[in-house]
């Protein structure tokens, strides 16, 4: 559906995107994550044909966005991170106006407007003025606007920003419906857990570079493989026992880092997978270290995000 091919964008000497290449299959909800200035909005604006890339290109259903902008616009629905609305205009007129901009005929306009207002749960507000809507409702109306020409790919830049939890939940529900309708959705956010909850796959960007791209499960598996081992020693076993435990852990060649976060709690990082954990435990027991708890801390996605973007 979408193939981003070595996309770069320079603003003078600042490199906003550095050869980004990503592929997104049809009918998926794909999350775009990264800290501020990572290049998410730049990528999305390039895909929406609002700015040309410095080099590279992207293909939407085989249409080169840099060469066939007009064709690409028919395939893309874009919702920026702000909701530009007009005053003195009713909800149905707002949608009707954009439908006319896409040169949709009168009958289809009427049908699409009704269907989309139904989809975003604003059917009862169709004759109300846009400025009278709440923030969440305006956001949903903007989502309906981006769908008015029935695009194959939907690009949503921070669609849930500034929304209360209820509005966020409603937005998530609508996005799931869109996936069921077979739309491909590219959605950006700073909040990785929120995206991971509803997306099939993720792309993590940092400083214009690709850090990770793949399925959500793949990301958490990869990161949980690097999760630190938590070893709690018996309370009151004394500093000698703690020092002894540290000494004996250092003897293991694959251990890379030992942190003492609390008096009797050690966090151990090591190179390798879960198969090495029994070796660590065996060593500690052999050396008579008073271990009372031994487990790997599962990483939540917030931590994953921090880890991943820190390393880049």
């Amino acid at each position, binding site marked *: 559906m979408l193939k981003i091919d070595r996309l770069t964008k320079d*603003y003078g000497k600042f490199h906003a995107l550095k050869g980004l290449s990503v592929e997104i299959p049809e009918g998926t909800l794909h999350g775009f994550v990264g800290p501020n200035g990572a290049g998410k909005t730049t990528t999305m604006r390039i895909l929406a044909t609002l700015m040309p890339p410095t080099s590279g290109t992207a293909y939407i259903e085989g249409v080169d966005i840099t060469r066939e902008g007009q064709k690409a616009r028919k395939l893309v629905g874009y919702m920026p991170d702000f909701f530009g609305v007009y005053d003195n205009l009713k909800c149905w007129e707002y949608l009707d106006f954009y439908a006319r901009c896409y040169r949709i005929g009168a009958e289809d306009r009427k049908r699409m407007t009704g269907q989309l207002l139904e989809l975003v749960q604003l059917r009862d507000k169709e004759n109300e003025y846009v400025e009278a809507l709440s923030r969440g409702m305006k956001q949903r109306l903007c989502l309906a606007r981006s769908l008015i020409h029935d695009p194959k790919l939907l690009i949503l830049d921070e669609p849930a920003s500034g929304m209360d939890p209820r509005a966020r939940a409603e937005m998530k529900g609508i996005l799931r419906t869109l996936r069921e309708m077979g739309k491909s959705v590219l959605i950006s956010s700073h909040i990785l857990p929120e995206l991971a909850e509803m997306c099939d796959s993720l792309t993590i960007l940092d400083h214009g570079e690709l850090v990770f791209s793949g399925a959500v499960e793949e990301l958490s598996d990869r990161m949980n493989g690097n999760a630190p081992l938590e070893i709690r020693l018996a309370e009151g076993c004394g500093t000698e026992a703690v020092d002894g435990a540290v000494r004996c852990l250092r003897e293991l060649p694959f251990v890379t880092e030992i942190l003492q976060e609390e008096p009797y709690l050690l966090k151990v990082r090591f190179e390798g997978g879960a198969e090495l954990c029994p070796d660590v435990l065996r060593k500690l027991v052999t050396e008579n270290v008073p271990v009372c708890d031994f487990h790997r801390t599962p990483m939540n996605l917030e931590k994953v995000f921090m880890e991943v973007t820190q390393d880049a």
Partner: protein
Amino acid sequence: MLNPILSFSATRRMRSFRTMLIVIGYVAALLLIALSILSPFLKDTVALGSLSRGPMCFLALLAAQFVLIILIAPAMTSGAVAGERERQTLDLLLVTNTRSFRIVTGKAMESFALLALLILCGLPVTGLCLLTGGISAGQILLGELFLLAEAFACVSVGVFCSSLSRSTVFSGVMSYLTLLLIGVVTLLPFLFGYARKITDVVYDPKNYAALTETGARGLLPKLLCLNPGFGLVSLLQGQTHILNETMKYRGWGRIYCTWLMADRAGWNYIAVFCAVGMILVSLALLGAAALLIRKGSKKAKHG
């Protein structure tokens, strides 16, 4: 299909209370001017000397509308593109299948339509001159057409400035300054250099007698003919010869010489040249504005 930007913007404009106030204010101003000039006709008896007041009223109304359009058009168009940027709706338009030129022309035509409505609303007031005599319906019609050309030019300047700027206020100020600049720049040939060439011809009776219409048109600088004020004067003079008495034998140096040269070149020719010139320049400005709105969007933001 009708330009969606035009119909949409016009709908929003006509819903605004301000639009109604503008129309009422415009017509009221014209009515005040007309009544103050034609007041002798409101009495039971009319003095013979008052008969010339019809053409005078026509002149005053056309001049007043000329100035009002210059004052209203920039205020009306300053938000055409800059307002879209302020509302953050320009990107939403640019991602649709509507081309930039269509967006710009839609915006320009919407403002032009309101100015045309104002001119149309002022028509009954101008029509009062018909009752006093000395002015024909055809002359009024030509005057209105000239005002329409002027309105189109002012709107294009406004939309062009709006496409350059990010704020409506800045765009408005820029439009007024640009219109002023156009007025000054087109007068430059008259103020500098050109006078000598023309006085040499006018003050030599042989040369002046031999001067043909085409020759005079060649001598008149094209830039000067593009001055809307000069265009209006040419139109009024061409239609009514109303300024003959004012200009006759005053010996005003370059003004008088220019007057004679324009008279030889043909007043109507200058008025038409000015109107056509304004329309062509306007189209060029709208084309440039269409290029600018996409460029502006490309620089908009990154993150």
